[in-house]
C-alpha cells in the first residue's frame, strides 16, 4: 500500500467570520491523493472552511484567521498565509467547485480556455487539446463535443457542474475543494461526478463538503464532522 505525504495541515487554526466563531484551534493533517469529506449541519461554516484553503474568504472580507495553514504545492509545504505565496498562483493550484454550477456566460470553449487565458496562454492547439482531454475526463465530450461554441449557460445543471469541474481541472490542480458539488444534480449526474472523483483519487487531494452520508460511504477515504468549531473524525 503506497504511503502519501501530507497535503494539507493546520496548526491551532481559529477562524471568525463576521464576528461568528467558525473554527477553534483546529489541528489537522490530511494525506495527499485522498478524498476527504466534511459534513455538519447547515450554516455551521463548512463552505467557509473550504475557502480558507484557497483564501477565497478574503474576497468577502470581514474574516479573522489565526494559526497556520500549510499546503503541499510544487512538492513542498507552503504556509499560504505567512510565506507571501502569490494569491493567484495559490488559487490556480487549489481549485474550487461550488454548490451551484457557475459557468461564465460565454461559450463552452471559452469557459474551458478561461483559466489558461488568465495565465496569458494563447496557444490554440494546446488549449483545444487540453479542453478535449478535460471534457473527456468529466464524461462530457460526447455530449457537447459538437457544440463547443454554444453558450455554457444553456447546458443542463449536471452538464454545467461537470463543465465547471473540467474548467477547474484545466490547471491540473494538486488540491480540489468541492462545496456540495452534487447537491443540485439528479442521481445520474451525481454518480457521474462520483465516478470522476474516483478517477482523480491518488493524483489530486479532494476536500469535499457533503450532506449525504451514503456519498461519504461510497467515495470518501476520511470524513470529518464540523461541530462547535472543531473537526471530529467520523470515518
Amino acid at each position: 500500500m503506497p504511503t502519501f505525504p501530507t497535503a494539507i495541515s493546520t496548526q491551532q487554526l481559529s477562524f471568525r467570520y463576521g464576528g461568528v466563531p467558525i473554527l477553534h484551534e483546529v489541528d489537522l493533517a490530511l494525506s495527499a491523493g485522498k478524498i476527504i469529506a466534511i459534513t455538519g449541519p447547515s450554516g455551521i461554516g463548512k463552505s467557509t472552511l473550504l475557502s480558507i484553503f484557497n483564501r477565497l474568504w478574503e474576497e468577502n472580507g470581514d474574516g479573522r484567521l489565526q494559526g497556520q495553514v500549510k499546503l503541499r504545492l510544487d512538492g513542498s509545504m507552503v504556509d499560504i498565509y505567512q510565506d507571501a505565496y502569490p494569491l493567484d498562483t495559490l488559487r490556480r493550484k487549489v481549485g474550487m467547485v461550488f454548490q451551484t454550477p457557475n459557468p461564465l456566460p460565454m461559450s463552452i470553449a471559452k469557459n474551458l480556455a478561461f483559466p489558461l487565458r488568465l495565465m496569458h496562454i494563447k496557444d490554440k492547439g494546446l488549449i483545444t487539446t487540453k479542453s478535449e482531454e478535460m471534457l473527456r475526463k468529466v464524461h462530457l465530450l460526447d455530449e457537447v463535443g459538437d457544440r463547443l461554441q454554444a453558450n455554457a449557460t444553456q447546458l443542463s445543471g449536471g452538464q454545467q457542474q461537470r463543465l465547471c469541474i473540467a474548467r477547474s481541472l484545466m490547471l491540473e490542480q494538486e488540491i480540489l475543494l468541492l462545496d456540495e458539488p452534487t447537491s443540485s444534480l439528479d442521481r445520474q449526474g451525481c454518480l457521474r461526478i462520483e465516478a470522476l472523483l474516483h478517477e482523480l483519487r491518488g493524483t489530486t487531494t479532494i476536500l469535499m463538503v457533503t450532506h449525504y452520508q451514503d456519498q461519504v460511504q461510497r467515495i470518501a477515504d476520511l470524513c470529518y464532522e464540523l461541530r462547535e468549531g472543531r473537526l471530529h473524525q467520523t470515518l
Partner: protein
Amino acid sequence: MNRATERGLTLLCWLCGLLPLAILCIVICYLLVRGGSSLNLALIFDRVPAMDALLGHQQVFDGLFPALCGTTMLVLLTLALALIPGLCGGIYLAEYASPLERRILGLLFDIIAGLPSIVIGLAGFSLSILLHRLFPGRFGPCMLLSAMALAFLILPYLVRSTQAALNSIPQSLRITGPALGASKLQNILLVLLPSRIQDIIGGIILAIGRAAEDTAVIMLTGAVASAGMFRSLLDQYEALPFYIYYISSQYTDAEELQRGFGAALVLFTLCGLIFLLALLVEQGFSRRWKR
C-alpha cells in the same frame, strides 16, 4: 392579496409602463406635424450643395449644418473627456473603495448630479473669464470649455450607473474569476465589466442624451446663434439645442418657428443615431464575449 387587486395592480403597472411610451409618441407626432414639412436638405444646407458643405468647400450660414456638426462634435468631445473618468470612478466605488470612501464619494457624486446645469454653466463661464484674463486674446468661451463643463455634468451619471451595474453582479459570478486564479484587475476586465456591459452602455446612453440636450451650460460657455462652422476647439460654435432655444424665444414669423421644430426633429434623430451606435457597440461586444 385577492385576484381582483392583483389584476388591478398589474393593469396599473402596465399603464405606467405605457405612459412614457405614449408621451414619446405624442411628442414625435407633434414635432412631425409642426416641423415635418420643413425637413429637407435646404433646412440643413440652405442653398449650398450638400457635397460642397460636407467637404468644406463652401460655408453654410443659414442652415442647420454648422449646428449639427457643433452638437455632434460637442457630444463626442464630452464623451471623450468624461467616459474614462466616469467608468474608472464607478469601478473604484464598486470594487476598491472602503465603505466610508463609498459613502463620502457617493454623496459627493449625488450632489454633483443634483446641481442645476445653469450653475455648472456659470462655473464654466467664470473659468472662461479667468482664462481670458490669464491668456488675453487666446481663451474665451469655446467648444472645449463647453465640453469640459458638460463632462462635469454627466460624470456622476457615468460613475453611478457603472457602480450600480457592478454592484448588481451576483456573488456566484463575482467569485468565479478569483477562484480560478484571476487577479482583481483581471476579474474586473474579463468577467465583471463584460457581464454588465448592457447596463453600463445604458448609463452611457443616458449621459449622451443629457449632454446632447443641455442648453444652459453651452449658452454660457461657448454656443452662439450664428458662428458658422467651428474651425478649432477654441472657437465659438453653433449647437442644435441652443438654436432651438433661440428660435423658440426670438422667432419673427411662422416659417422661422417651423424651422425650429425641424431643428428639434434633427436633434431627435441625431440622438437616436448616437443611441443606435451605442447599442450596436454593446451588441457586438456582448456577442464577442458570449461566443
